[in-house]
């Protein structure tokens, strides 16, 4: 199964952790950040007719979540090629 000579499991796992932390930082910023903690500040701006912080809480964060997961799929496939892991 895993007898490929070039498999670098340690490097793969370290890179996975870095990617995961980056994505979770974005996840935190768009929901807890933009939608809750900095909402009052962001509400002075508007997207269409909606206050920006409110929009992030009810729409924007969800769109970003979808993007994050698909980026993760894509980036993990790249890591698997780079470290010789069979995905």
């Amino acid at each position, binding site marked *: 199964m895993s007898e490929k000579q070039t498999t670098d499991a340690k490097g793969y796992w370290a890179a996975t952790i870095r990617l995961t932390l980056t994505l*979770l930082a974005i996840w935190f910023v768009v929901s807890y950040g933009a939608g809750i903690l900095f909402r009052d500040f962001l509400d002075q701006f508007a997207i269409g007719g*909606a206050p920006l912080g409110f929009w992030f809480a*009810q729409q924007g964060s969800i769109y970003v979540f979808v993007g994050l997961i698909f980026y993760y799929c894509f980036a993990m496939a790249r890591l698997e090629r780079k470290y010789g892991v*069979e*995905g």
Partner: protein
Amino acid sequence: MDWTLFFVITTFALYIGIAIWARAGSTDDFYVAGHDVHPTVNGMATAADWMSAASFLSMAGLIAFLGYGGSVYLMGWTGGYVLLAVLLAPFLREFGKFTVPDFVGDRYYSDLARIIAVICALFVSFTYIAGQMKGVGVAFSGFLGVDFNVGIIIGMVIVFFYAVLGGMKGVTYTQVAQYCVLIFAYTVPAIFMSLIITGNPIPQLGFIGNAAGEDISMLSKLNGVVTDLGFQEYTQTDKSMFDVFAITGALMFGTAGLPHVIIRFFTVPSAKAARYSAGWALIFIAALYTTAPAVGAFARINFIDTVNEATYITDEENYETRAAEIEEAGGKPVPTWYKTWEKTGLLQYGDKNGDGIMQYRGPNAPDGVENEVNPNRDIFVLANPQIAQLPGWVIGLVVAGGLAAALSTAAGLLMVISSAVSHDICRRTLFKNMDDKTELRVARGAAAGAVVAAGLLGIFSSQLGFVAQVVAFAFGLASASLFPVIFLGIFWKRMNKEGAIVAMLFGLISTFAYIVYFKFGGGTPDQYFFGVSPEGIGFVFMWVSGALGIGISLATAPPPQDIQDLVEDIRVPGTRQPHGIADAGMAPAPAE
């Protein structure tokens, strides 16, 4: 009425047809649909599994009255999928077994840990399923003139058919059909309402657009209308920021820890497929979750427009003649949808100033008029098509959609309950030599028993009326007890059995006690721990539970080498090997 019957019968026939086609032949089929469901298909099934009667029927109505405060549900119930995708799903798939207690019991090499996980899973699932059955009863009794209990029994028979026959395989493919029904049923009225209120057919754009034919945004207009009546601005909330933060957290981490969601990711062929599957699931969920806030705002506008300052017509008067008289005199008669729903007791009007006109006001009304109208938030999704005067078939469609949402979630929960009994308790703990055929028979029996228990719970709980309150349990318990041990089990090799058992027990008992005290034991909000309401407490206790698990693990012996090797394996796709004590009694299923 005729349209409703038509849609309900057609969709039910479809579900039964799928059940017969997708019968399960082995325990592999029964628990995890043979591990070979396509990621997109699984994503759609996960979306239907996840979106319950609460998402479909109650959420938009809650948002309509909570405004910004309703955001906790939107962010909480979608953000959890990011956690699932990057922290749990691919690794649990790589682990390669059937259930959440499988993972906990094997990773922590302990039948005690397995049994505690079973208790958490059963508690969460039964809490949740009672609400689904109640939703089925409401839809039947409200629209088809069937008795509430008979409605629940009809729902039970349908679920019995595909869950007991088809197991996870039958459930998966019926959930796909149910997703199509529910999303169509949700978006059609939303598009109509968006067109009427904002002139834009796409609800997500109408939400941020201008009110139809006016030079003011829909949301600013709504803010103006509600503050004039003495309510909080729609885009604000009176909850504290920390409480909003904690509730969102409990819902997110709770979502990621819910067993009926996690087991869906065991059905795909590989870790890679599990990642994609989470992405697809969230796309399908987002289709409803980004529509819901628009529906909420539109519903609030429609409600105020049609009800506030309308002249009431009593049941003794002839509605048509009286309504014509009122209109002639330049007044607004109470709408027919209001009279229909009034019979259910979910809308109440008390004429406090004796003028026969319905004043709808908030707590700080500038004109000092007292509020006379009390709507139940749960009715809005069902009543919306009538409020917006949409054609009869739209109403029938919405009823079929609500039933699809409730039945698909109920089926997913039944799978957790039956596998906990037949697999985790019987096969893995009590009778370790049980063969596959016997286990499949026990699993079918357990599913059948669970259907009956769930139905009785639905019938019984409708008398108590406690379902809405105990839903907080499901998320609180999942986030405080299951999430930390699963997460640490993957990301921290040093986590051992002692740490896991203490962490789960602490999460279970503390969250349970807090919720019971404040929901049923007479606790008052000024006693809240750091101002956190029972809905959000799971988030706080999750951190304590994780910290306890780490502390106890460090103070006791590290886990055996077999276990540490197992953790290494599940982190890297394609390297999973059986490891002595970690897999004692059952070999892992290979990835594709």
